[in-house]
């Protein structure tokens, strides 16, 4: 799907994400300025502070942004807040550094002259140092702002929204059009922002200090008028956006019901299905936190009251969350999980949905033919020759890679951690031979892969289990019925088909979910 078709069919979504992106960036950079400039001034006065402060800002810059996001979730939760905080942290360094440089490069004689005519420190700062520093400071703000636009795309990873949402969804579903639809506006936004800030930089540079200023003062003055007008308009627009979102925050319906999902196709479809059904069948105002992150992120979020509901899988809950050794007894897995979740986390596991998205190992048809591999026990012979590529989650789970190799008594030639759809791509380009997959994965169909039969019943059951915070459920028991109705409709085949529509046919998870619900009469056509 090309970027143009994607943009054309989804322009409303791209536009609203772009606006969200602008809001987030403006807020983060704005706060970074409010924090960074005073710090820069402070360390230019208290010189013994400059090294520690600048080193700290440098250090923050050096931490990978993903790691910083990881640290932020337990402290700030998920959503916009941690995203903004992290972007602020990253934006601080250029602002602090340039403020500091700007102030310290003013000749000491000039400051002494100002003191000599009887100006107070504050007057010197306001009338002499600050105006002379402003051009350099603005150069720092420019760097910060452009970086912030780029960095903010990562914010989608913890559910902050913005253009990164398109990039991440696009990567998950190997939809280049969608990736570009997120990346291109972000690039343009960065360029426009850089241009606007360059106008500010020029405006705040005292006329006398501009190159050629002495000859063309009138031209510059006329130019300044135009620049001012442009900036005023841009500022008003951004303020309008911020104000709008603030209003939104205030008017937030208390009845808001937050639905989340993990960051792969099936989860996106499930998230949309759940959200759409609840919107249609209840009075709740549903807020979507789709594409939030892996199991850890989603479970931490529901536990921390950041979200109210998401769909997980019985096996995942049983082994990963509740830390039980993997077993294959379907009922036991569900019953134990339900009990323990209620007891330990005050979460209710609703009735299992009708499909089992268990793990599966998949290889290319040609490879299966060559070695005559059709079931997992064949790996005892051939496993040592195969290079595996698996999600980080699979590599880290007791019922994942480790258990698999143990149960079937073999060891892969090598294993590589690859997230999302990229392992299918790597497999197609023969960089890896065997991958983990979900049984309902539409990409299995798309790439015509052979799923190896779990002949020793190693993989635990992974029935979809809607998890709801019990507190919310008590208040809104009306959500149970529509969710159970939905669960009954989704069997393995149906789910794989839905996934296939997104992964293979390049449709939107939103559209696919919507169409499915309409077709089955759960909601009416929009």
């Amino acid at each position: 799907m090309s970027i143009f078709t994607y943009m054309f069919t989804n322009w409303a979504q791209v536009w609203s994400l772009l606006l969200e992106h602008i809001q987030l960036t403006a807020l983060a950079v704005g706060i970074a300025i409010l924090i960074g400039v005073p710090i820069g001034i402070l360390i230019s006065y208290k010189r013994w502070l400059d090294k520690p402060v600048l080193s700290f800002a440098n250090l923050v810059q050096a931490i990978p942004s993903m790691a910083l996001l990881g640290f932020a979730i337990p402290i700030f939760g998920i959503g916009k807040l941690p995203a903004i905080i992290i972007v602020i942290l990253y934006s601080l360094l250029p602002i602090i550094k340039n403020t500091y440089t700007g102030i310290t490069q003013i000749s000491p004689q000039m400051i002494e002259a100002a003191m000599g005519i009887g100006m107070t420190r504050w007057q010197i700062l306001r009338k002499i140092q600050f105006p002379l520093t402003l051009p350099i400071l603005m150069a720092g703000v420019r760097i910060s702002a452009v970086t912030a636009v780029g960095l903010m795309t990562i914010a989608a990873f913890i559910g902050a929204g913005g253009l990164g949402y398109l990039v991440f969804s696009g990567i998950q579903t190997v939809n280049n059009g969608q990736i570009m639809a997120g990346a291109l506006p972000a690039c343009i936004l960065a360029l426009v922002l850089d241009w606007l800030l360059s106008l500010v930089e020029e405006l705040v540079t005292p006329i006398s200090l501009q190159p050629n200023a002495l000859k063309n003062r009138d031209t510059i003055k006329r130019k300044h008028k135009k620049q001012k007008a442009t900036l005023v308009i841009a500022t008003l627009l951004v303020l309008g956006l911020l104000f709008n979102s603030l209003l939104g925050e205030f008017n937030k319906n208390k009845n808001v019901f937050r639905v989340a999902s993990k960051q792969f196709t099936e989860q996106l479809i499930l998230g949309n299905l759940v959200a759409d059904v609840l919107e249609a069948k209840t009075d709740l105002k549903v807020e979507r936190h789709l594409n939030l992150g892996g199991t850890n992120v989603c479970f931490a979020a529901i536990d921390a009251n950041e979200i109210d509901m998401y769909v997980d899988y019985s096996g995942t809950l049983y082994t990963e969350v509740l830390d039980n050794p993997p077993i294959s007894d379907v009922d036991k897995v569900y019953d134990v999980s339900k009990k323990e979740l209620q007891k330990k986390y005050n979460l209710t596991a609703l009735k299992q949905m009708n499909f089992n998205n268990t793990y599966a190992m998949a290889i290319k048809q040609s490879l299966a033919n060559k070695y005559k591999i059709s079931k997992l026990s064949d790996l005892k012979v051939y496993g040592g020759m195969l290079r595996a590529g698996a999600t980080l989650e699979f590599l880290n789970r007791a019922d994942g890679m480790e258990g698999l190799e143990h149960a079937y008594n073999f060891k892969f030639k090598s294993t590589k951690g690859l997230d999302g759809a990229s392992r299918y791509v790597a497999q197609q380009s023969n960089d890896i031979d065997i991958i983990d997959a979900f049984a309902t994965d539409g990409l299995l169909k798309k790439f015509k892969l052979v799923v190896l039969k779990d002949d020793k019943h190693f993989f635990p059951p992974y029935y979809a289990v809607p998890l709801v915070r019990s507190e919310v459920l008590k208040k809104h028991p009306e959500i149970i019925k529509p969710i159970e109705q939905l669960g009954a409709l989704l069997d393995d085949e149906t789910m794989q088909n839905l996934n296939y529509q997104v992964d293979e046919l390049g449709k939107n998870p939103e559209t696919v979910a919507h169409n499915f619900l309409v077709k089955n009469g759960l909601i009416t056509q929009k």
Partner: protein
Amino acid sequence: MRYNIYIYCIEMGSFMIKFANVTKKFKSKEVLHGINLEIPEGKLISIIGSSGCGKTTMLKMINRLVPLTSGVISINGRNILDTPPVELRKQIGYVIQQTGLFPHLTIAENIALPMLLHKWSKEAIAARTKELLDMVGLPSDMLNRFPPELSGGQQQRIGVARAFSTNPDIILMDEPFSALDPITRNNLQEELNDLQKELRKTIVFVTHDMDEAIKISDTICLMRNGAIEQLATPEQLLKNPANDFVETFIGKNRIWSSPEFIKAKDIMIENIPTCGPKTGLLSCLEKIRSEVLDYILVRNRLTNEFLGVLTSGMLQDLPSYEGVASDIMRQPVITLSEQDSLVEILQKINEHNRPYLIVLDANKVATGIITRKSLIAILGKQYLSDDSDEGMVI
């Protein structure tokens, strides 16, 4: 006697700024050693010395830009430490090299800064600004320009105007003209002189340029290694250097570049033979022959008042030597006073085409004579080695 400090006595008048035993240490290094200095009101004092002598430090201590280590600096009898620094500085004008103007502010805004600090009204500031531009001889269309658009000399004029803006009694100037070209510097020095004649501020002027100091100062304070070597008027300094250092610093024969300080008294030939009006001509002739000089001065024996002059030429070809001195002596119309400067002497000699001029003191007593010959000898001295100086006054 190398470190002997010339005791400077001033005429009646109050001291504006007083240094009492002031020392300054930067870390453990003492850069000013027990300075005692009294700066009289309405006078311009130059502090001069080579770099590192402590002259700028002294200046900046007055407005507390540099804190003193011990001792007391007082202004009008009030210890400067009793006034908060910002208040103190508002009372004192301050001019430094070019960097003193703020490049992002227009000329008008630069000049207005001290007045704004004094919370003057907009109208008052505008009026005063015009006045000041006029004072320093700049057109008022400069007000909306920026410092980098001005020449060095114009910038410095603005700096001076700013220092005078709130009409402070004291103005500190830290090498204000040293970065300017010689012609501009010269003009500004003259303008400062004119301003000072009119406004009579107490000005402390730091410089390393002896010509400048001599030209503009009432008093020169010559510093070396954090101590005062000599405190004197420019003339005293030139004529009576306190020691070899001072002499070397001001430069040998320096006085020739300030001929206005060379007075008739300093260069006249003294001890000229005299006679009374009734002295016989023959004895006059004998006296002239026995002396090297060609002149005899006729004076009143009782009052010593100068009456006339006899030259060897006048005495040589007389038909008879019967008469007395008063019969043939000449009474010159043009005479010099002891305080006439070299310039005036040369002017008079040329103007009246005289071979010699008699120097009279206040009581009309002839104290010496200056002849064309002696002038040539005096003027030639600056170009010749000064070993054979003895006997010459300078």
